[in-house]
């Protein structure tokens, strides 16, 4: 899962245009929304597209996002459990 966590860190920085943030500075347990990386509602929707495009996971209820995207760690776990690609 370590590789997946690193992979997700890179993808998030790239897809969400977090140019002022270094991948090395992101902790897998940091909250993605609110404090921590401070992502917003559009970012949450982008992450849903990312899960579909790169891992074949479709999220139909955006409210699920709250638990899945709590941190990179929870995201990695969800991807590991549900990926079809």
């Amino acid at each position, binding site marked *: 899962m370590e590789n997946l966590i690193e992979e997700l860190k890179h993808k998030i920085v790239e897809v969400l245009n977090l140019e002022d943030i270094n991948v090395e500075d992101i902790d897998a347990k940091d909250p993605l929304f609110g404090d921590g990386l401070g992502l*917003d*509602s*559009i970012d949450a*929707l982008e992450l849903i*597209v990312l899960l579909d495009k790169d891992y074949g996971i479709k999220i139909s209820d*955006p409210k699920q996002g709250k638990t899945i995207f709590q941190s990179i760690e929870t995201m990695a776990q969800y991807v590991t459990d549900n990926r079809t690609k």
Partner: protein
Amino acid sequence: MRNVFIQESNLVSPLGFNLDENWNSLLANQTGISKINSLGNFKDFYAARIDDVQLDLMLNKDFVGLETSRIEKLLTLVLLPLIKDRINEQTILILSTTKGNVNALQNNLNEAFLSILANQIKNKFKFFTQPIIVSNACTSGILAVNVAKRLLQMNKAENAFVIAVDELTEFVVSGFNAFQAMSNEICKPYDLHRKGVNLGEAAAVMYLTNFTEENGLNYKILGEGNINDANHISGPSRTGEGLFLSINSAFKEAKISAKEIDYISAHGTATIYNDEMEAIAFNRLGLEDVETNSLKAFYGHTLGASGLLELALACKQMQENTLIKSLGFEENGVSESLNILTQNQVKEVNIILKTASGFGGTNAAIIVSKNG
């Protein structure tokens, strides 16, 4: 500054090819939204679409060539009956649209420029002036009327045609889908179980003057405001700040207060956030008891056409002293309640408020009076 009057309007939509047909459909509480079998890659979703076979039958073949885009056909059809002998050398033409002929992106990029569409209308109807194009998300329709009103107030011209249009396109449907903003059933503005928008398409026109007309409506524009939330580019302000300030600015200009408003034609897109934001803004202004409806469950969200379409129908409700049920609403689903119309209602209406909000944090409000 001169007074500005709304004289006449027209509509082309899934509910009719002129204003009266639309009005009769509304009176019968008939929706224009249906299940669309397919639009590009989208299948089985709810939206309001104008029937192409019927559209073709309505068009005057002398006026419309083979190369005419569908969107230009819609504008031509809606504008033609209002032209009469009204165009002079200063007559203003304003086009309100968010995406114009965006379908052209599929095969001819150059045709997608909004000025191409505006000039097609200018040339077809022989306007003398450079067309003005307002592209300001979903407040474009009202903003276009407000822009025209200001020019007429300053006597830069005596009259203006405001036209508005947007089509139902895969371009827009795919985007709203990516925002998870679309409902999988007919939308329910302000309702507890609302799940999002239905998209729609329509064309509308409104004729304005800075003089009174013997046979015109002579409905006076009392005030307006178009103020930004400065909060977020896709979500509305939680306190409804921009909408509050827009309506307040309109009140100030009109020199009236909330208690003089007889009816509100609200934006009511049926997203969780928009409807909640409106409820908060209206309550902050003391408008919570005013009869209110959203027409989005009749027409879907027609984007750049919505402000003008709904303003035209607000004037029609005022003309008929009959308010239309806010279709889709059953149980209150906003934290501060509003007086949402649960059935058609006969009421003497003299002053109306129309509002809209949109992406980019934009908001617009306009107050119109029957009696000057």
